[in-house]
């Protein structure tokens, strides 16, 4: 049976931390805002030098916004977990009645809160400064964001499992994960330009379907809901798999005593 108070505790703790620390609040939207500004000017320049080409603003700036949203979701799950790593709080935390499911739920809800703030800032900036309009996507915007959100959650849980298994130093594996995946996710180009082996990987990544579908709509063709349904199914499957992996690694940490003496030295 799931209890709401322990989940509320995880959310409240994150709120306390952010309220008292501008260094934690700024990354929620600062890097995304920088990306929007940078890519906003790049797309404006591309539109200026290609008079009869496609409109780069929705194509590139829209893609950047979606990709940054996905990245914020993943980092939202990870940074909430890392707060417990940084403050060496595992012993106090896991000696309470809190269950792993409640803990993961708390991490996900924290990520929803922070990524929603980031998304709002990005949307306002991209619309106000560069005229990006999302009305072109219509209702498809919701499944796009949902698929990216679900996949971000699954990668966040995977990253947490890696840190729990390999120790605090494994944090450095976590930050580059979105950058590592971006060439395969076909954020800025169609999957068809990739070599065959990269396309195989792309077909396993839900964001690749989102960006393909997005370009289809911008090209004036009908959206393919079946493709997005498949992407959402993949993302849900990844959440289940990574949650199972996290639970297994947590159980291993309980068996070996790692939770009680979690440091860089003991985890490896």
């Amino acid at each position, binding site marked *: 049976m799931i*209890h709401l*108070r*322990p989940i*509320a*505790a995880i959310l*409240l*703790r994150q709120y*306390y*931390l952010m309220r*008292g*620390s501008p260094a934690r609040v700024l990354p929620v939207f600062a890097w995304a805002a920088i990306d929007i500004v940078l890519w906003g000017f790049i797309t404006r320049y591309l539109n200026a030098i290609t008079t009869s080409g496609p409109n780069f603003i929705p194509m590139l700036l829209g893609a950047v916004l979606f990709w940054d949203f996905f990245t914020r979701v993943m980092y939202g799950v990870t940074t909430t977990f890392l*707060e417990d790593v*940084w*403050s*060496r*709080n*595992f*012993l*106090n*935390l*896991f*000696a*309470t*009645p*809190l*269950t792993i499911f409640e803990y993961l739920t708390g991490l996900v809800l924290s990520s929803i809160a922070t990524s929603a703030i980031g998304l709002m800032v990005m949307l306002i900036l991209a619309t106000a400064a560069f005229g990006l309009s999302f009305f072109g996507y219509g209702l498809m915007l919701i499944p796009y964001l949902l698929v990216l959100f679900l996949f971000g959650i699954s990668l966040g849980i995977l990253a947490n499992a890696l840190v729990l298994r390999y120790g605090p130093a494994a944090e450095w594996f976590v930050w580059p994960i979105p950058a590592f995946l971006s060439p395969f996710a076909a954020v800025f180009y169609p999957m068809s330009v990739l070599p065959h082996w990269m396309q195989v990987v792309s077909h396993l990544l839900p964001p690749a379907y989102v960006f393909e579908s997005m370009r289809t709509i911008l090209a004036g063709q009908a959206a393919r809901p079946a493709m997005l349904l498949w992407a959402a199914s993949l993302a849900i499957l990844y959440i289940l798999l990574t949650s199972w992996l996290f639970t297994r690694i947590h*159980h291993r940490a*309980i*068996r070996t*005593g790692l*939770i*009680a003496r979690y440091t860089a030295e003991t985890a490896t």
Partner: protein
Amino acid sequence: MVLSITDLRKIYGKTAAVDGVSFNVKRNEIVGLLGPNGAGKTTIINMVLGILEPSAGSIHIEGVDIATHRRRALEGTNFTAVYAPLPGNLTVYQNLRFFGLLYGVCDLDERIAAVLQQFDLEGFRNTKCGVLSSGEQTRAGLAKAMLNQPHLLLLDEPTASLDPATARDIRAKICEFAGREAVGVLWTSHNMAEVEKVCDRVLFLSHGRILLEGNPKTLPREHGKETLEDLFIAVAREPLTLEGNGT
């Protein structure tokens, strides 16, 4: 019984950190868990807290098996340890609220006010735990430990690193709480004078096994030693000789 441990074992590879330990703690009883470094004290406490899985044996807290009903068993349990300070990036109040929710404490505001007063922490309510002195951090840890009015309290060297005056105040507060709430306490310490003062019963551990058990005031003489500290040193240096004289 508030705590009932039966034939508890923890094996790491070929080493037995805890090797067939059985004991009980009753309500309104303070039991000292003594032994040299590496004897298995903290390993036992971690298993009772559910953060370390036993290799064999069982742990029941108020009759509830922690292996199968972890939440129910831990709702009435709490602990503090010198090596597990509260997160330094939250204030005392924020930490108490956070852990109060995790333990499902009812009337949380009232409980927080009560433990803040009990441990003279009202002046540090909005101070981040990371900037508190050792004594203040210990008091904050104890406030957290008593927040859910546990029936079983695990204290792993609660007065380590404190000056004698602060340690005496802390001991008095723990004993007062334990007596008032009829709590069962499992207390580890390397301070034998402290153990003699506060514990109703002591268990001497060596190499993961209980070597001796008894009243801390009479146990030394039963084994030909003047003081509890002499007995402790004997246990640490010559456990096998003492084992032959066991109770």
